[in-house]
Each structure stands twice: as C-alpha cells, then as structure tokens.
C-alpha cells in the first residue's frame, strides 16, 4: 500500500462487501494490511499550497476569519476559517465537501483547534464562498459555518468528550462549549480583544483538552471521593493496582463482609482524597461521578506561545460552579465577565495571564469581582513556589 498516492483508491466506489470478503476471523492475518500509517499529506494540498510550499512570504488578515497569504512566486491564497462544533456528523462533512468542491478545487483543511479552513485563490471566489458560508444555517438558526477565529479575538474552544462519549467526565463538553460560544459569539468574528484569547475545556482532570495552558480554562471536577463496590471490585480490577493508583496513598487494602462472606476490597481515606479520578481510571468499581458533587472549575492566564512571555500554566481562580445543564448560565456569566474585564483593561498584545501578572493577582480578583478562596492557594507538590515571599503587593478590597 503506497500511502503517498491514494487517489486511484479513492476514486473507486466504496465496496461495502469487501471487508467481509477479505476478513476471516479464523485467519485474522490473511489479507490484513497493517502499519501503513496515515495518507501522505501532500496529495491533499490544494494546488496553490503545493506549488508554494515553503515559499510563503507574508500574510494579512483581510477581515476576521480571512487570511491572505502571498508567496514569493507572487501567488496568493486566501484561507477562510469557519467555526465548528467539532462533534460533527457525516452529513455535515458531506456539506463541507460540497462547498470545497464548489469553491476550493476539492480540498479543505482543519486547524489545530478544530476550525475548518477553505482555500481560494481569487477575490471573486472568496466573496462567493463567504456569502455561501454565511447563508448556511441549522434548523434552530445557528450558523453552520461562522467565519472568524483569527487575530485578536476568540477562536474555537478546544474541548473533549464530556457526557457524549467518555466514562470519567464531571461535566459535559459540547453543551458547555455551545453555551459559552453562543454568548461570546461576537468575539469569534471580530478583532477587538487586546490579544488572542484561547479558551479550552476538559471534562475531567485528565485534561484531554490540555486546558492547563489556556487563557481561560473550563475544567470538570469531581468533589466526592470514589464509591467502592465491595461486591464487584475483585472481579473487575486488581486490588494492588487500585491501591497504587492513588498519588496520595489514600487507598488501602481492606477486607469486609458482604452477605456474610469475607471479601477483599479497598477503603479510601476520604480526607486525603483530592478527587483526581485516577483510581476510577484504574478500577471500574470506584466511580466518582455524582450529580451534586461534580461541576466546573475555572482557570485563567495560561498560554502556549513563546511570544513576549514564556508559556505558562492556567491558574485556578474559581474552584467550583455547579453543573447547570443545558446552558450552564453561571459558567457562561463568569467567563464573559472575565473576558470583558480583560478586554477593558489589558494592553495591546497583552495576553490574559500577562495582564493579571502585570496588575497583580490581587487586583485581578478585585477587578473581576471574583471572591478569593483558600482553594486558590496551592497545596500540592510545588506549592511553596507560589507563596508570596516579598512585601511587594497591592492594597485591594482584600486588605481594605
């Protein structure tokens, strides 16, 4: 299988019966193609991209969502970026293909933040494409392909599975993202923030959304220690693994009587539990999820790029907001407020975390009117490095 040239293969119609013909469970290696890796990228490049690979000279964001690239060869390419729910159906992908075929010579791309990008090479097509995109709406009225996500604005929220697919979430992902993006929609299609603002969501502490370095992070958290299913645990996991799973050593082996029978199980020292969920990952008989206990923590001020300041972690500023499906109004409100306060107060080019550091976190909490709680004080391994070991601080509502 030559993955550098699969055009021919793709040109063939899908053969629904082929797999069953080739695959014989009794001889699983027969006809098996493995380790071919992903298709080679180059064959999917639109012509202008292929021809100008490595030759691009500069770019200009001609309007939010539309970036014009100019090559040393003089070639021009417009990239049009559209928001996406990421959780999308084959129908929607087909619609994307239809658009790509119509305007983009049959090519399309996704960004690292799950936006869709269409490429055209002349302004006329650009205009037609934009009109087309803006016109496509869902039955409920939402845009199918909102254009934006560039420059000093907000782009798509990187997020994870939530209740749509994962087994460990403390919150939903897609629903929260939709609720936040609806409210902050104006920032997606405009360049009026001081710098780019990256919002991310992860539905549990595993942080598949890598929210640990985002300007604003929405994090699903549990707040109740794991249940222990004494009658099931030995059947579904090994006690030593469950015990070893806990970074704080809060899990100890135990023996209990279940229906008159002695059973090996574990006990959790609940006061030492920090709800990380690693025990559940290792052992299905230790679920943490709880409708009342679970909810959202907000972290802010992280970043990835090495621009001006070094990459940094997001900081926990709101330890808990209850789950409020379907629209999570409290979460939406605090995020909007932070974004607006940032927008009003930060300097041009200044990322949210750099702003907070410049004015001081005491001032950040004051300006954003967020109560400071002990939960924001670190007490994990490297906690000491976050203590304030100087008399340099500002007076604020907290000291008034």
């Amino acid at each position: 299988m030559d993955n550098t040239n699969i055009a021919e293969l793709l040109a063939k119609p899908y053969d629904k019966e082929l797999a069953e013909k080739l695959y014989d469970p009794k001889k699983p290696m027969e006809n098996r193609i493995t380790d071919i890796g992903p298709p080679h990228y180059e064959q999917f490049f639109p012509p202008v991209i292929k021809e100008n690979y490595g030759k691009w000279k500069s770019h200009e964001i001609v309007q939010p969502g539309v970036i014009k690239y100019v090559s040393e060869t003089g070639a021009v390419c417009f990239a049009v970026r559209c928001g996406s729910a990421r959780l999308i159906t084959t129908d929607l992908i087909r619609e994307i293909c239809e658009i790509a075929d119509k305007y983009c010579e049959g090519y399309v791309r996704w960004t690292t933040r799950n936006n869709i990008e269409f490429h055209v090479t002349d302004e006329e097509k650009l205009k037609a494409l934009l009109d087309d995109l803006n016109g496509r709406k869902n039955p409920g009225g939402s845009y199918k392909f909102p254009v934006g996500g560039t420059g000093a604005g907000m782009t798509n929220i990187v997020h994870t599975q939530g209740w749509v697919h994962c087994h460990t979430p403390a919150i939903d992902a897609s629903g929260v993202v939709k609720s936040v993006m609806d409210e902050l929609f104006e920032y997606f299609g405009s360049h009026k923030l001081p710098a780019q603002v990256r919002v991310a969501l992860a539905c549990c502490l595993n942080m598949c959304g890598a929210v640990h370095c985002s300007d604003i992070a929405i994090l699903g958290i549990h707040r109740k220690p794991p249940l222990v299913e004494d009658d099931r645990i030995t059947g579904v996991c090994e006690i030593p693994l469950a015990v070893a799973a806990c970074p704080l050593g809060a899990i100890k082996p135990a023996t209990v009587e279940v229906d008159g029978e002695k059973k090996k199980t574990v006990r959790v020292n609940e006061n030492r539990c920090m709800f990380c969920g690693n025990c559940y990952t290792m052992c299905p008989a230790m679920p943490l999820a709880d409708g009342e206990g679970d909810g959202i923590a907000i972290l802010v001020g992280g970043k990835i790029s090495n621009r001006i300041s070094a990459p940094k972690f997001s900081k926990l500023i709101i330890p808990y907001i209850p789950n409020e499906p379907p629209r999570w109004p409290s979460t939406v409100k605090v995020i909007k407020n932070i974004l607006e306060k940032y927008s009003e107060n930060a300097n041009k080019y200044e990322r949210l975390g750099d702003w907070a550091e410049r004015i001081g976190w005491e001032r950040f909490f004051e300006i954003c009117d967020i109560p400071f709680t002990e939960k924001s004080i670190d007490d994990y391994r490297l906690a000491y490095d976050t203590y304030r070991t100087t008399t340099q601080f500002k007076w604020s509502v907290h000291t008034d």
Partner: protein
Amino acid sequence: MADVKKHDTPMVDELKSGPWPSFVDDIEQRGFNGKQACLDLLGQLELSYKHKETHWKHGGIVGVFGYGGGVIGRYSDVPEEFPAIAHFHTIRVNQPASKFYSTAFLRKLCEIWDYRGSGMTNFHGSTGDMVLLGTSTDQLEPVFFDLTHQMGADLGGSGSNLRTPSCCVGKARCEWSCIDTQDICYNLTMTFQDELHRPAFPYKFKFKVSGCPNDCVAAIARCDCAIIGTWRDEIRIDQEAVKAYMGGELKPNAGAHSDRDWGAFDIQKEVIDLCPSQCMMMDGNELKINNRECVRCMHCINVMPEALRPGLDTGATILVGAKAPILEGAQLATVALPFIKMDKDNDYEEIKDFVDKVWDWWMEEGKNRERFGELIQRQSMQEFLRRTELKPIPQMVKEPRSNPYVFWSAEEVEGGWKRDVKTFRARHAA
C-alpha cells in the same frame, strides 16, 4: 431511510438556538436522516443532563487484531433505553499531517462510517486523529479493512504507546515555518509505526511539531517530545517595510487588531519596548536587532510580518516531558536540545537517535503510568542527560539551582569515599 425514534430531549434541545453551530441540530438531522444511533445519543445525553452524570460504562478493551491501540471501547450503562448506542466504540484514524483533505477522501470516510458506524465523528480529536465516534465490536475489523484497503488509511494511537503525532500547518501555508513540519510528522509516524500500534511503553508518548515558537500545535504543553522550529542566524529585516509600518501604510500584526482603535502604530511602544530581551533599537530610521541577545520569541515578527522574517539557518529546538496533570501534576516541556538541524536528507537521524535513547531509558526505568516528564523529575535531569548523552548547558534551566544539595560521586572527589575511621580519629580525638 430506516425508521428512526426520536426521544424526548427538552434540555438538549435548548442547545439548538444561538449563533454557534449547534451539534444538537446536526446530530438530530443526521438522526432523522436515518441514524438511530444519533437520536439515541441525544436521548442518553438528555438523561445525563438530568442526572448530571455520564451514562457510559467504564472502558472496555476492544481492538483490531495485531494492534494494541486505536480503538476506545465504550458501552452505554442504559442500553435498554438506547439500544443503538449500547456499543459505542471510537476508532482513531491517523490524520494526514496538518489535516488537509481531498473531498474524495472525506466522502469515502463518510460512506464507511455511515455504513459501519454511527455517522458521528470528531474532527478532530485533541491529539489530532480523525475520531470515528460510535460503533459496535463486530464492526471494528471491517472498518479497519475498509480503511486500509479502500482508503489507504490506518489507525492512530491509544493506550501505552506512541500516540498519533501532529503538526502545525507549517511551510504549507505559513511564512514563518523554520522546519518541514509535515514531513517530520509524517516521517516520525511512519518510522515508528510499530511503537504506535503496539503498546510497549510505560504510558503514552506524544510528538508534536510546530514550525516556529508561536507553537500553533501547542507542542510545548501537550507532548512528551516537542519539535519546535527556530533559527540560529539573524532575523531578516526589510527596512523599507519597517518604515511602511511606522508610516501606517502596513497594518501592524497583519490586521489582527483591526476592530478596535488602538491609536497609531508606535514601533517603540509596540515592538521595541515589548521585546523580552530588549535587544532592538531604532538607529535613526533603521531598526537594529542584536541577534545574539534575541530569544526568538516571534513578537517583532508577528507584529511586522512584511518587514521581519526568521533567519535562514533554521532547525529545531527539542523539548521534552510536557503532560497533563495525571498523576504528579502538569508539566510544560523542558529544553533538551537547543538546536538541531532537521535534515530530511539524513532522515532526521539526529532526533531519532535522541528518541531511541529516551525510550531506552524510559522503558527500562519508567514505572507503570509514569510519563516521560515524570521520570525526569523522579530520577533527575542529570540522569536524563547521562542517558541521552547530552551535555548540561544553561539553556536547559531557567536558573541554576538555589539549594546546595548537590550529589557527588566517589570518582569526582579527591581520594574517593573510602575513608578510615581510625585515621580520622588519629587526627581528631572523639
């Protein structure tokens, strides 16, 4: 079209309104369009909205023959109510580097997935895969055969193996890319197919490749081995373009701040004063950069893309050990190799040699579920340097240690460690 059953989903339906693309509308439409799984998924989601708890069971090990990764098992914990999603495994399909597609490819994928799965996807997963969301165990092998035989596609990673590498758009469209991000990503993926498909590591291992320090694929935060483009020579300056920015003819930051009046562009305030290494100055009308002091943060280049460009002696900085919080806390990646040439001609030998040493050490010493970055923390950066045969340089640390608790080995110390109590006491009465 088959008959489909719509559940009552009042809460979930609230997510149809508002301007942002509604996943609910999309999924519901797909459901009405024949996919019961879609409607069952919305039904179960409604139940989750009611209970505020997930309704997926814990894990479930499923997969395709000969691979230890690429499929995540998933079962509903209310299968009677939602039988179409009783099994709802995901298949991670390795995306083409930087995620360009032909519609032919996507259409074929849709056909397969409509036929063999739920019709639902993530484009893309957080690691970068095309995620095919929801199918039953009996469809796994057929999907795999369809992907390999009819599309030339393969699975991505999951489990304790190499995860699907990914990269930024790089030279394909970006003028700043110092390295061939796609080629590196593809090359590593192909070289390490075995590591990707057959879990043999203590835990997951990720590569990401960004063309420059803007790091558009978030490598520095999200992977065990980050490859980030950089340059060793001088930032290229077009003094005429600098003047054009100063004169207001060119828009700062390529127009990224267009919707707000930030006043006239002020090169001193907006560029020179913000340079983290304070290595720029105006010399009359000329912009001067002391490149030896530049830390290649990209800011000046970002602000004046027509005037400034990365240098020509390009390569990559390799950083290791980034990860999410589980277990010991999150880590950002640490500088390991400040600069290596990324040489296509020698098949990226240098980085692969390095990675081999990394894996040797980690596979020998890493504990179960210990990420590579945690191993470094546990056994020390010194041990990391010894095992990878790197020499210690100040670029690896923000600052030298402040505690005095230095380890020495007997060989380093004059006279070694063998000492005799008696001789000591001959000099010093107790």
